[in-house]
């Protein structure tokens, strides 16, 4: 279970992390912890799955990659086999089932737009269902911090 120290660590470390010789010592000082207390707790939060990751959050397009959101309308009896096809593509980074006629929503990331188009064509060919490609046209905001 998380205690108040864990909560303070999570909130503080969502605000950013210094780029300097000993960044953990610097953050630990802000939290009145020792460097090893901070890294030990951080490791535990990662091991428990409270944190997915600790490190840089990259902007996919700006690091030279392409990304899109795609949706499909899949009848229940086909769900299992279609999901297996979609998830079989390593370019599919996330895939969610959602409450809608458009019930399957997944993120495709690849190094080129052509590679994304290949994945979409491959899924359509192997499932017989349309993939609705919904690339972002404008990004207004990304980056919520979850207060705990």
């Amino acid at each position, binding site marked *: 279970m998380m205690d108040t120290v864990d909560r303070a*660590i*999570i909130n503080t*470390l969502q*605000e*950013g*992390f210094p*780029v*300097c*010789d*000993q*960044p953990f010592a610097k953050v630990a000082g802000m939290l009145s912890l020792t460097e090893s207390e901070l*890294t030990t707790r*951080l490791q535990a939060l990662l091991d*428990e799955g*409270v*944190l997915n*990751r*600790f*490190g*840089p*959050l*990259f*902007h*996919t397009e*700006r*690091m*030279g*990659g*392409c990304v899109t959101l795609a*949706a499909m*309308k899949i009848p229940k009896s086909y769900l299992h086999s279609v*999901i297996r096809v*979609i998830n079989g593509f390593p370019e599919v*980074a*996330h*895939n*969610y*089932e*959602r*409450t809608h006629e*458009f019930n*399957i929503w997944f*993120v495709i990331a690849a*190094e080129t*737009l052509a590679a994304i188009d290949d994945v979409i064509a491959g899924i359509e060919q192997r499932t017989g269902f349309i993939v*609705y*490609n*919904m*690339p*972002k*046209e*404008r*990004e*207004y*905001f*990304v*980056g*919520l911090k*979850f207060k*705990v």
Partner: protein
Amino acid sequence: MVASISVVEDLCGESDDSSFVDPVDRAIIVETQGGLPLVSKPYHAVAIKLGLSAEVVMERIRAMQRSGAIRRIGAIPNHFALGYKANGMAVWDVVDEQVDALGHQIGRLDFVSHCYRRPRYLPEWPYNFFVMVHGQSHPEVEKKIEEISHILGADCRANDVLYSTRILKKTGIRLK
């Protein structure tokens, strides 16, 4: 502290040259995309692995922060584990002329994690404005969606919310 609003053109759609990360940046990305090592001098540890000096690694990382290639460095929480169990993808059909101005306004709300304009597929999918809203319960999420609808006002013609019922895959985006 509130994160700055990032307004980014879809670079992919506008450029054929998608390889604008140089080999040194790329090596640093590949080495750190799974996470930073939890050691006293993490940037030195990355530098040793890549055969670079720590100063070069830190300078490159700072430059990627300035260019926006790194959005931020820090903890990436699992929102399910933090108690945010209701995760709604809220969508609206917003008048084209108004969607950009409204998008910036709604992106500033503190409960919004992602806010985008995307293409419609008429008549099946009339929605062009997508907002991820997280909360502890569906009523809480719906209250927040109401707040957004209120801001959109008459510029919004229709809306819907799609809750995630199952995570089917979550490996994250990785450069090879």
